[in-house]
């Protein structure tokens, strides 16, 4: 495309179907402890 570049696979909907396994880290255990951010966590299901 000339005007739009898509950066990622945009697969959030797929992850809803396959997700929820609970293997991943709990967000508050990483660094924040006061300011929950989720999107900086990684999926560990395929590790």
């Amino acid at each position, binding site marked *: 495309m000339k*005007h739009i570049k898509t950066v*990622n696979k945009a697969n959030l909907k797929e992850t809803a179907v396959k997700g*929820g396994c609970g*293997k991943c880290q*709990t*967000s508050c255990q990483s660094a924040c402890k006061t300011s929950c951010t989720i999107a*900086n966590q*990684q999926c560990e299901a395929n590790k």
Partner: protein
Amino acid sequence: MSNSIHRFKQGDLYIILDVNSGGVHVVDKIVYDLIGLLNPPLSEEMPEEIVKILKEYPEEELKECYEEIYSLYCDKILFSADEYRQYAEMSIKAPIKAMCLHVSHDCNLRCKYCFAETGDFGTGRKIMTPETGRKAIDFLIEKSAGRQNLELDFFGGEPLMAWETVKETVDYARSVEKQHGKNFRFTITTNGMLLDDEKIEYINREMSNCVLSLDGRKEVNDNIRITPNNKGCYDIIVPKYKKLVEGRVNKDRTDYYVRGTFTKHNLDFVEDVLHIVSLGFDQLSVEPVTAPEEMDYAITEKDLPVIFKGYDRLYDIMAESVEKTGRKPFNFFHYMIDLQQGPCAIKRLRGCGCGNEYVAVTPDGDVYPCHQFVGIDEWKMGTIYDGVIDQNIANYFAKTHIYSKEGCSDCWARFYCSGGCNATSFIYDGDVRKPNKLQCELMRKRIECGIALSVKMRDGFDE
């Protein structure tokens, strides 16, 4: 503009986020202007009024842009629908897999902004016994059901004041994890005052991550992170942190954070970020203080423009380095957003897992939904000794998600913050399900910077 997309400019990038698919698109100015006028459902032909509104662009070019937008709309990565409510409504309570173990409700610092009320959470100064530590491990193993990866963060107060309990708890967990099919990951959050060679060696061997508190420049740190006799701690802790991190990197344990808090007194917090970097640290988290508005150090709405400028500046510094070297000069926790391998949508509905997957345990063995709820009687969930957890509280948090929190279901950032910190919402507005507007503003700004930085990192993506 439709709330199924979010458009923003960060540095030299025009970015469109498709909220519900997670699609991130970099666009030119004409698409940026055009898309702001569109609302789904889109028709195959561009609406006639567009040409009149965007007179500055040639009609043919507008039509070309519209075709591209329409194509992505048909692919369901622009203006896609929110289909996640069904999953949220099915939410049930989850096994506990993470624990914040308050081994010490005592502290050797008197930081002025401490939410733990100088370490004891208002419940009296106490150190957890090794027996209680071991009991907490048994409790976590039992309550984790089928979860394999279990996390335990040693917290306080200052956890190094309970060093024997830390070691005995780790050793006990290591002695029983295999027979239960579990894998413990330990972390520790410390102010560094009691670090010595023995503790550094042990931490670098056993802890998968460690969080080292430091607020930045000496004068900033020492103004607020003080000893009981009113002296700053910077000169004591910085050499110890350097030694610990050096030892960690040598062991290929690269996970650590130097974590600072900024307040109204250092709204130029970017200087503190840069100072920490200048000390040789490259894993950072510097975060705004959580405090009621009446405190003199609290951040208020009036401070937002200055803070936003700071976040922009930090983004510019990091983006420039990415452009020049292909690498971030350091990791800034709040700008770390993985656009490709991030958490699944199910995790994003509920976020931190507080009161469900995550609990805090006090030196007496009392259980709370998280470390920030500790000491608030109405949120006590039970004790590790009787092993019974308040199911009403657990169920309440299971049903606390982006569709039950005020304002989240219409917010573009909902799949990045998951409704924010439950405890912060309670502390500010007395309601777990009412996210604090100030915190939301800060969060949205950081997410924009984080997404833009991730875009920079993926420069050269398929065009």
